C-alpha cells in the first residue's frame, strides 16, 4: 500500500491517473502526518513523509526498511527478495 499526507480526494485522482487498482493509496492527511510521524518518517520541515519502503511480515513484525532519496526508484528486486524470505 502507499501512504502520503494528501487528502483522500487527491489520492483518488492520482490513482485514477496512474491506473492503480491492485493496492490502496492511504491518506495520512489528518491529524496531519500522524502515522508517518509514528513510523518515524515524517519530515517536520516540509510536512510530508520521507520516501521509504517498509515490509511487514505476516505476524506484524517489521522485516525491511529502506529510507531513500526522493526521485530514486526503489529496488524492486531487493524488495521481492525480502518478501521471498518471509512466510506468506
Amino acid at each position, binding site marked *: *500500500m*502507499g*501512504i*502520503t*499526507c*494528501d487528502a*483522500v480526494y*487527491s*489520492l*483518488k*485522482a*492520482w*490513482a485514477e*491517473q496512474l491506473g*492503480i487498482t491492485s493496492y*490502496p*493509496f*492511504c*491518506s*495520512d492527511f489528518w491529524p496531519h502526518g500522524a*502515522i*508517518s510521524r*509514528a*513510523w*518515524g*518518517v515524517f519530515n517536520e520541515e516540509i510536512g*510530508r*513523509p*520521507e*520516501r*521509504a*519502503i*517498509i*515490509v*511487514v*511480515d*505476516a*505476524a*506484524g*513484525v*517489521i*522485516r*525491511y*526498511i*529502506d*529510507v*531513500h*532519496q*526522493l*526521485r*530514486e*526508484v*526503489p*529496488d524492486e*528486486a531487493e*524488495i521481492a527478495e525480502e*518478501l521471498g524470505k*518471509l512466510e*506468506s
Partner: protein
Amino acid sequence: MAEAGTAGSDKRPTGRTKIATETKTLKVGDAAPDFTLRAHDGRTITLSALRGQRVVIAFMAFAFSGT
C-alpha cells in the same frame, strides 16, 4: 550523492542513496505500529487486519509530484 542510473540489461537501479535502514522510531524486528487510514477507493485500511499477509508499505511525498 551518487547519481541514480540504470544497470545494463537487468534494469536495477544503481547508485541509489539509501539514507537509512531504520527510521527515527523503528528498526527491523520491531512490531509494526497499528494504524487505520482511509484509502483512495473508499476502503478503510487497518494494518492489524492484514495479519497473516506480508505487507509492503511505501511512504511517498506528495500525489502527482513524481516522487
